[in-house]
């Protein structure tokens, strides 16, 4: 049996959750304080994901803040960064507009988090 310690990041509390694994399967989750913690610990062990936040260039100069609409698998962060490196966006653009569809083949869009006129 293997125990993975996961620091929960759902809220600032930062609970240290124990996930017990046997043959790669979760057999129990302990020391959580809320339901969101269970979900987080489970995902963190089986399929860790992160929301990627970065910037892309604006054709008018400066940069536009963007993020993935949802969390993407952690292992795709670098690929998504490389893909967004050469993107140039033309204003006008507003919060929520799609900047790149299906970033790094994750099926998840990169969206604007700022406005540019």
């Amino acid at each position, binding site marked *: 049996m293997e125990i993975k310690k996961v620091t929960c990041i759902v809220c600032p509390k930062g609970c240290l959750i124990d996930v017990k694994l046997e043959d790669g399967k979760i057999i129990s989750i302990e020391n959580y304080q809320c339901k969101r913690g269970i979900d987080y610990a489970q995902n963190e062990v089986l399929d860790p994901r992160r929301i990627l936040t970065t910037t892309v260039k604006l054709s008018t100069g400066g*940069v536009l*803040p963007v*993020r993935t609409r949802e969390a993407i698998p952690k292992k795709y962060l670098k690929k998504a960064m490389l893909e967004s490196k050469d993107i140039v966006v033309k204003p006008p653009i507003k919060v929520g507009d799609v900047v790149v569809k299906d970033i790094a083949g994750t099926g998840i869009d990169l969206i604007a988090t700022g406005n540019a006129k």
Partner: protein
Amino acid sequence: MLNKELVIIGGGPAGLAAAIEAKKNGVEDILLIERDSRLGGILPQCIHNGFGLHVFKEELTGPEYADRFIKELEDMNIEVLLDTMVIELTESKQITAVSRKRGLLQIQAEAIILAMGCRERTRGAINIPGFRPAGIFTAGTAQRFVNIEGYMPGKEIVILGSGDIGLIMARRFTLEGAKVKCVAEIMPYSNGLTRNIVQCLQDFDIPLLLSHTVVFIHGNERVEGVTIAQVDENFKPIPSTEKYFSCDTLLLSVGLIPENELSKMADIALHDVTAGPIVNQRMETSVPGIFACGNVVHVHDLVDFVTMEARLAGRGAADYLKNKIPSSEHISVSAGPGITYVVPHKVDPEKILDDKQNFFMRSTKPMEKARLFIESDKDLIRTRVLQHVKPSEMINIELKKEEKV
């Protein structure tokens, strides 16, 4: 001289929420003054997520969080002056401001809300020996370069201090292709939120050196490296623990200072520990009719709590303008052992808004299963067990009006 019912100084998260809340509570004649060319304060450069979990029950980035308030403010037709800096404030609520477009402005306000926020501590504040080359930035300045201007300040980076902005920038630099060699923290524990340690350092295998500090900066024209040493319990470097790290950039994330030059001009009483105004239950300072909220009062770790506090100040100011009755009978609130400070610093229990009061506080050190005692001079009001506390994560306790003694 211009006359205004309510003037708000600062258009960051605190100023925005205070203005909106004051308007919602019946104040019509509001002016918000902002020295930058855009609203939102520091939020537009905080492009990472994690904002809004308390206020909106969803996870937003800084620019998105700001956008919601800016839209609401615009929809309410609240008057805003951008590129305008307040340079003088008097106890009688006279404001002097300057702007390139309008020149010198003088405004007489009936009530004022201070929302000037805070600024970063710099190298000068912590006296690091060594040369004075280019390549030393505060974390927030580097954040502005990368996220707003689109420039990378360096390629090989060492970060001193594990405050949240430093941790966030460690990840940001790494994603952008720079090498972050380490984060050195003089305290035996991190000064950032746990989620930032996990997401920003552990995710990218960036070492966090606790009880370590920079003892020398090398390089003449440009930073070439830093010497880092372990420190003892008195924060003195331990000889023979020095290690050299080559780098072209040193980021400082070594704390924030509330910006209270204007508060001092108006003779507003400041608190020794927070370095911000002493406030009562409705965020009113020692000068009746002048209110304060957000990082100008005490440095927050979550913008959501800034918003909550600012809404209280907005309602407090509306209440003051309606009734003009100052709070008089105050109970003073003081921090006991294990707590560094409590905001508000004093409470008039008869004038609590909404029959409940939030108290924000910080612990002196990390503790497990800490028991918090809330006592009056006569009695124990309430005790509460807190699973994990650490100085970097603010404790928020709500007391009901009937719990007073």
